[in-house]
């Protein structure tokens, strides 16, 4: 069986990111590679590309990485971070259009079964009203 897809959580708030990661670990388990980042270096709210790149590295899996974001900049900075990845990795990282907390838990549950990146993203996005 190939490696489980990794999950990255990108929030404006370090507390939200840390708390969401903690929910994933406690509810789903530790078999899913997990990375998270949130807040600016001064302790305020914010997201930045460098921290997102580090979180992607922390959660890296050959099967890919699904990113869950909260608002605006979290998404645009995540997309920027993906563009900065080496070409071979770029194709294997996606931003999910899903609520950050619920999406992370659902995506991780799917990932824990060895599901593909596409299946992991679809599971998270099932939560999004159309």
């Amino acid at each position, binding site marked *: 069986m190939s490696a489980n897809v990794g999950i990255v959580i990108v929030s404006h708030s370090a507390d939200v990111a840390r708390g969401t990661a903690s929910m994933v670990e406690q*509810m789903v*388990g530790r078999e899913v590679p997990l990375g998270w980042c949130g807040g600016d270096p001064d302790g305020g709210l914010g997201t930045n590309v460098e921290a997102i790149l580090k979180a992607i590295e922390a959660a890296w899996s050959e099967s890919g990485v699904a990113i869950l974001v909260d608002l605006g900049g979290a998404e645009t900075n995540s997309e920027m971070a993906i563009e900065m990845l080496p070409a071979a990795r770029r194709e294997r990282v996606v931003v999910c259009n899903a609520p950050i907390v619920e999406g992370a*838990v659902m995506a991780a*549950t799917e990932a*824990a*079964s060895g599901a593909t990146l596409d299946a992991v993203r679809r*599971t998270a996005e*099932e939560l999004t009203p159309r």
Partner: protein
Amino acid sequence: MTKRVRASVLLRHAVGLHARPSIKLTKLAKGFESRIDLGLSADGPWVDAKSIVKVMATKAPKDCVIYFRAEGADADAAVQALVTLVEGDFQDGR
């Protein structure tokens, strides 16, 4: 060899089929090859027991009966494992 197996079990878990029980149930179901459905009545409607979003959306409350039906080579083992999980109040699930 394709087998069809059905079973039902009383859900006694204090909060019903909420987040953590749903995750345990789904993770267990995913470990089997068989197609596995879950319903809240003997004749459905059925949802895919391997879909965390659909399982959680059933919002099965405490003291309701959960029905499983499975189809596939390991259907017997799958249904037995799921019933055991629910009977054991979800303590055995990983």
